């Protein structure tokens, strides 16, 4: 559990982070989202003490971060920085193995871990392990940066716009990969992004920052359905809000008994997928698979009912 307790950072006359308090549960992803200069990076850097807060404190599983030496604290926390920050004089393999080496892992174990991570990020180990960062594309460098942060399997991961340099297709895949890795390892992730779409997609909770203040901290569905301020509504994108909301609801949730023509949607489909299928085929309902009770159907009327936003 990460407890951020009245954290404030003042630079001269400017307040970069203004009295932020939030609690993130272990094993969840918290997406910190906001416009440029809203204090996201500063907030993140205060968690592993790259920046000392002006006031307030951070507790990790109940333990105040100031109780240990900063570099000891940082070895336990994975950190993928904004703009990869790879060591240009080390190979990809050495970069990824940096923290395990610091922690004194045996050589063989490090090597296996490096290859495992390269595989995980769709980089062929034989081809990439011995290259230097300058010999990679921007997107590849960024993936290596994220792999490096994951290398020692830290319980807590801080990621600052880890997918910023990726094209939409690779980005979506990297997000899915991250989600999968996080689910299997049960790690806690604090992820900074300026992309609300990404925050909604990845976050169990979304923290919206504006001018150093935390303006809303809630699960994605609530952020979309009930934005706390006009700024949050603006970030979500007023026009797309109904669709965003539908994408967060599993189709099985509105499924009723009954049959419908056409091919059934996969089990993890969202209402947005169901709507899309209805529109594409021109039907009033689509068949959906349910966990229990056998196949059912999602009707346009039911989908529409769920897309309505409270005024």
């Amino acid at each position, binding site marked *: 559990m990460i407890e951020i307790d009245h954290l404030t950072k003042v630079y001269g006359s400017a307040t970069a982070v203004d009295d932020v308090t939030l609690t993130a549960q272990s094993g969840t992803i918290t997406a910190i989202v906001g416009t440029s200069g809203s204090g996201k990076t500063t907030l993140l850097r205060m968690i*592993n003490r*790259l920046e000392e807060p002006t006031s307030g404190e951070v507790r990790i599983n109940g333990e105040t971060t100031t109780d240990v030496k900063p*570099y*000891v*604290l*940082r*070895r*336990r926390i994975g*950190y993928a*920085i*904004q*703009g*990869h*920050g*790879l*060591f*240009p*004089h080390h190979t990809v393999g050495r970069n990824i193995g*940096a*923290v395990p080496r*610091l922690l004194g892992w045996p050589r063989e174990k490090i090597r296996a871990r490096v290859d495992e991570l390269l595989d995980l990020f769709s980089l062929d180990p034989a081809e990439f392990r011995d290259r*230097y*960062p*300058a010999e990679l594309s921007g997107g590849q460098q960024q993936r290596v*940066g994220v792999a*490096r942060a994951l290398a020692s399997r830290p319980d807590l991961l801080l990621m600052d716009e880890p997918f910023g340099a990726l094209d939409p297709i690779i980005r979506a895949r990297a997000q899915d990969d991250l989600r999968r890795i996080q689910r299997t390892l049960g790690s806690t992730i604090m992820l900074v992004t300026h992309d609300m779409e990404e925050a909604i997609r990845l976050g169990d909770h979304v923290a919206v920052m504006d001018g150093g203040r935390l303006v809303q901290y809630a699960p994605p569905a609530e952020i979309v359905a009930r934005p706390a301020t006009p700024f949050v509504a603006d970030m979500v994108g007023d026009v797309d809000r109904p669709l965003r909301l539908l994408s967060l609801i599993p189709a099985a949730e509105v499924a009723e008994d009954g049959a419908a023509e056409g091919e059934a949607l996969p089990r993890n489909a969202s209402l947005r997928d169901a709507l899309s299928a209805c529109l594409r085929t021109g039907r009033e309902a689509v068949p959906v698979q349910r966990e229990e009770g056998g196949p059912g159907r999602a009707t346009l009327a039911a989908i529409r009912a769920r897309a309505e936003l409270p005024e």
Partner: protein
Amino acid sequence: MRIGTFLRPALVLLLLALVLRPDWFVPLFAPLAPVGGPVIYARSSLLSLSLSHLGLVAAATAAATLIAVSLAILVTRPAGAAFRPLSRTITNMGQTFPPVAVLALAVPALGFGAGPTLVALFLYGLLPIFENSVAALTSLPPATMEAARGMGLNRRQRLWQVELPLALPVMLTGIRLSAVISLGTATIGSTVAARTLGEVIIAGLLTSNTAYVLQGGLIVGLFAVLIYDALVQLEKRLSRQTSS
């Protein structure tokens, strides 16, 4: 590059011949020597003069590197930043003070021989190494340094594993400049009885023997060119990896 592959071995061979087999060059230098006078410098072997010359330069450059780099590391730490202007002033003085004057002042204290020359070369060589090291250590890629801190490297580990390796190519440039300046400057050491190739040149000047001057000058020049080239190659190899 292609020129280098032929020129480099040719220059090495020429240098070896000049040092080890000076007799071969008698026909070439004879027209420059005074009529009936000696053509090839024979008072001491050119090999031993060369080795002693190179030894002096190497010792002075090594000492200058050690002090200048240590000083640069010190003043680029937060605790030492206050000393940066002062150490700049000192190393700058080392360079503006003419080596001849250093020799003159050092002789009463250290006597004739290699001592005063070492001191002069050392002082003269500090500045380029110091300036380059400070520049290299203060212009490291910020994202890389942030990542190094963020993953939990402590100060010492950051210095040895990240800062120094990344700064090395630019530091080497400073060492190269310093070494080449020293190679030339060492010749004046012979005025205070240090054994250097300057002995040949000075003997030529004293006896109006242009052949001597040319021999001494050629050997020093070839050493300078070849050492310069070797260090450039080394820097290139090192910075190929680190440039992003």
